[in-house]
């Protein structure tokens, strides 16, 4: 997917290298999470996959084709939600379907399904400003899921949720991906979330953003049968889980070297 990607930005007459020589691939129907310190270029990577930004060198491919621009085959959940403030919850969720030309009764059914899945019943006709941050984020997620895209690109989609809702959403996402596996690139600040959700975790380093290591979670998950456990906290208690989590934390910490640690590791999820 990403091949020797570099991205430089101009900042006050100076070239700043945000990403340097990033190469990795997200397999068909694979769930890959990216963790790394703030400002290491995670959002930039995701935007390039979405076709909203382009590499200064190297190439970004989806399938066999270089990404040329944005499209509904790659749905994005933005870090800042990006809901349309003049549209109601329903209209926001149904926007992509309307662009696609889905007939209105089919559209209403899909919207209703995601409203229910995201626990937004009763707020269908509310405007985004009338919702809490967590609810807005759920609308943004529903808007992307509703398109049933081949590729899901999510930039800290659970960042604004409270701990309980976050756990529910994580479990829902796992279920959703099990029923209907899809290719996903998922950015998070939470190491636990990355290990819990992803088949592989990409750990990045800062300035310029490089790949520190790519960990295979799927094989451990299969070997240790994480799927048998229904809840997040049960999985997080497993020794295999704790082991992976600690390894990633050590990688993130060793490159901090005195700098502040992004987020606090203590809270699960």
């Amino acid at each position, binding site marked *: 997917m990403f091949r020797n990607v570099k991205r430089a930005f101009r900042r006050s007459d100076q070239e700043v290298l945000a990403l340097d020589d990033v190469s990795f691939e997200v397999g068909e129907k694979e769930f890959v999470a990216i963790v790394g310190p703030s400002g290491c270029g995670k959002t930039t990577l995701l935007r390039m996959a*979405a*076709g*909203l930004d382009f590499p200064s060198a190297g190439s970004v491919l989806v399938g066999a084709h270089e990404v040329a*621009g*944005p*499209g*509904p085959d*790659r*749905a*994005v959940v*933005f870090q*800042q939600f*990006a*809901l*349309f*403030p*003049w549209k*109601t919850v329903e209209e926001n969720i149904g*926007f*992509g379907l309307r*662009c*696609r030309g889905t007939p209105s009764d089919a559209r209403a059914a899909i919207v209703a399904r995601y409203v229910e899945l995201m626990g937004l019943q009763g*707020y269908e*006709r*509310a*405007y*985004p*400003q*009338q919702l809490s941050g967590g609810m807005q984020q759920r609308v943004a997620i529903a*808007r992307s899921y509703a*398109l049933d895209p081949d590729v899901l690109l999510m930039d800290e989609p659970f960042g604004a949720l409270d701990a309980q809702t976050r756990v529910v959403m994580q479990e829902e996402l796992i279920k959703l991906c099990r029923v209907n596996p899809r290719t996903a690139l998922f950015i998070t600040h939470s190491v636990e979330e990355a290990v819990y959700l992803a088949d592989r975790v990409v750990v990045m380093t800062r300035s310029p953003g490089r790949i520190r290591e790519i960990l295979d979670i799927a094989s451990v998950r299969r070997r240790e049968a994480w799927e048998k456990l229904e809840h997040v906290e049960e999985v997080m208690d497993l020794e295999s889980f704790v082991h992976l989590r600690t390894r990633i934390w050590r990688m993130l910490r060793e490159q901090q070297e005195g700098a502040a640690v992004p987020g606090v590791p203590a809270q699960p999820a």
Partner: protein
Amino acid sequence: MAQLVASRRPGRGIPSAPELAALSVAGLLLFFAAWYGVAASGWVPSRFLPGPQVIAEMIDRLAQQPYAGYTIQVHTLASLKRFALGFGLAAALGVPLGLLMGWYRWLDDLVTPLFEAVRFVAPIAWVPFAALWFGTGIGGPILIIFSGAFPPCVINAYRGARQVDKVLVEAAQTLGAGGLRAIGEVLVPAALPSIVAGLRVSAGLGWQSLIGAELIVVSSGVGYLMVQGQTSLQTPIVMSAMVAIGVIGFVIDVALRALERAVRRSWGDQG
């Protein structure tokens, strides 16, 4: 979604809506009382400042008997028609132009230098051209109103378009919206508050320019009524025309303010 929104109680020191209305009425009453007082005191000759009761009688008379060719209603309607045409044309051309200038960089670069130069020419400065090109036809006053109303339409639509949150446009694109849909469903609604604010300014300037136009190039309308009153030294007629101008300007502004509120509500802003 009333149950989602905390009702805003007027706090201590913040006047409520009825209190504000009462204050406006009190202000008007005070004004008329002072006017009446000064006129009745005889300090100013009534030729220069007739009292409000004289103006009221005059307006009543102008409504019954034609002056300068027509009754005051017909003059007012003539003015409103010109205003509607000039302002409508300015909005219909100015808003899309401003939006597209904000959307397409090349159009911005192409139009802005010319626009910036032309917009500093005051509407009244177009009078010679209006007379030259259109004679006494309806084109003259429309050109003058247009020249007053057009720039604020363009500028505010442009600002609105430039201030659209880029991530909203990107979100629309990733959801599969093409160029037209992105303009229609993201750019326009996002810029709408700014557009409507521009229309309000534009209507005010347009209405002011209209009066300027009617002072010179036509033979009907409240502006014309005013000049005719002035040349025959009929101060009450001049002031009656001024009252008509003020009242209609006020009504136009109230209408556009209502539109502004409606737009804000459709944005989910309940405040």
